[in-house]
């Protein structure tokens, strides 16, 4: 993928308003044995932008998502975050860079309380080690108090106050998703990766989610990349949509542009445009 650098230089249609891209995916190729899951995809996510990643099943969305979150290593191309390659960044350093995430089927710490789940999200903001904690030195106490205060405001923002001391594993699915969101947000991400945030939610909850995503972007001044099947949600909430099919990008632009792209219409032919059964 020699075109990687040129694609980064040419600002994408929906990028106006943001100076330099926050994240730049440049000609990513991922192979599993003989299968090319992602075949050279490039796109940018600007600052404060909500970017939707769509495509039929098997298009390579999850694979790409896992590359950006550091779970998979890519074979070719590169991903730049604030101008730096994340190729050799260990997984536990991604949060520190400013990349937060949620998981497709929710990956909470089930036997911990909602409050503690959110507090774990603040781990990377802290510095205290074993000895300082065992002695509970003043700076450890201050660190903990800051995290607690942030947790409290997130509990309010996400309407989780009344379940704060409940075990996360015992909550209904929709609540667990909000806990996960809070856990990602407390780490002050610059880019929030959401893997099917609407999955498993009912109609009302999806509508709430839409408002919540906008609110989060305003409140925390961050960018969001979401992989989502729920077409209505993606089209309504995104500033920019990237469509994949068979590991190749087939469209990239505003929701209206992508909706009217012949390739996208063809790829989704037969699939309902109003796909809110998920």
């Amino acid at each position: 993928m020699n075109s990687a650098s040129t694609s980064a230089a040419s600002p994408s249609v929906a990028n106006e308003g943001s100076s330099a891209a926050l994240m730049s995916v440049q000609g990513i190729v991922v192979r599993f044995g003989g299968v090319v899951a992602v075949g050279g995809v490039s796109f940018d996510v600007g600052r404060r932008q909500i970017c939707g990643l769509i495509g039929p099943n098997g298009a390579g969305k999850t694979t790409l998502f896992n590359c950006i979150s550091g779970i998979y290593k890519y074979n070719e191309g590169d991903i730049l975050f604030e101008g730096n390659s994340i190729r050799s960044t260990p997984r536990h350093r991604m949060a520190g860079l400013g990349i937060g995430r949620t998981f497709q089927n929710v990956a909470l710490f089930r036997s911990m309380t909602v409050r503690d789940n959110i507090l774990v999200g603040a781990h990377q903001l802290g510095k205290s080690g074993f000895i300082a904690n065992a002695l509970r030195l003043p700076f450890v106490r201050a660190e903990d108090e800051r995290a607690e205060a942030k947790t409290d405001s997130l509990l309010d923002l996400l309407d989780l106050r009344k379940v704060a001391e409940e075990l996360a594993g015992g909550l209904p699915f929709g609540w667990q998703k909000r806990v996960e969101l809070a856990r990602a947000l407390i780490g002050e991400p610059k880019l929030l990766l959401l893997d099917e945030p609407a999955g498993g939610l009912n109609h009302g909850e999806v509508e709430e989610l839409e408002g919540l995503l906008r609110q989060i972007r305003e409140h925390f001044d961050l960018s969001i990349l979401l992989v989502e099947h729920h077409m209505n949600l993606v089209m309504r909430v995104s500033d920019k949509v990237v469509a994949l099919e068979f590991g190749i990008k087939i469209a990239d632009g505003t929701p209206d542009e992508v909706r009217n792209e012949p390739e996208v219409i063809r790829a989704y032919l037969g699939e309902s445009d109003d796909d809110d059964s998920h």
Partner: protein
Amino acid sequence: MNSNSTMTTVMPHAIAKPAVTPLALVGLAAGLAVAVGAAFWFSDYHLFQLTMVVVYAIAILGLSIVTGFNGQISLGHGAFYAIGAYVTAILMDKYDVPYFYTLPASAVVCAGVGFLIGLPALRLGGLYLALTTFALAVAIPQLLKHKALEDFTGGVQGIVILKPDPPFGLPINGDQWLYLFTLGVGCIMFLLAWNLLRGRIGRAMRAIRDRAVAAEAMGIDIAMLKTRTFAVSAMFTGIAGSLGAIAVQFVAPDSFTVFLSIEFFVGMVVGGAASIGGAVFGAFFIQFVPNLADQISKAAPGAVRGIILIIFLYLAPAGMAGLTRMAIRRLRRPKPTGA
């Protein structure tokens, strides 16, 4: 939900959870008073038993840190207990080091050994750690008997050490002092553990246990945290070994067979794996249930112990701590929220 941003300003973290409730504080103070008072109420033999309860509580706490809180199974924590005991015995016997100075030495040695064992085993995954520690526990008595180490360890005979005298001319006897000294060290160890486990590091330990992938995404360096947790855990159990050696005034290889490790494991499970208070209950359990079993049946005390254990775990599958938590939840909220 859109209106919630205003709520943030209306009630800025109104109900911050206190670290200790007043009731728990009163309970703790009362417990401590009883524990200190015990030094003057009980006869020397019973006091020795109570000293061993404190020792076992620290040992079980160590195991609970790594297994209960961090989810890494160790079947051989008796090995660290043995190492701690021998460090103290050798330093006192061969080098005339005062007993209290042997504790930091034992802590350093056991943490070091724990770190070195944890480093490769933890990277390979949970069951490898279980097997490695088990192998260590099996090997330890034989290592201690080995000819090459006999000059230090005293071989099969072991080492007899002197009973410490009460300091500062305190008007108490040796057993009372030994008990109070052990209790004091125990309190410090429990305080350190409580601090460690309730803060950033303790949360990270539990997060790894519950969902490692998510813990990593939160910025937790899993391999590093697990290895250090194992070292800390080995250190706690090692210090317990040192205190045990001082209390018994004797160490020998056959006191530290693999059964000791199993006893610690039983104590941890019975107390409730991820519970600080549970470690104390577990210690009482492994100290007194054998006596109880002996009284019930002289012929088959082992079988009686097994039955007691099974009945207990049937009634309290999450250990004593689980039972207590359930009771507290019931009391706080008559109608349990479902789901």
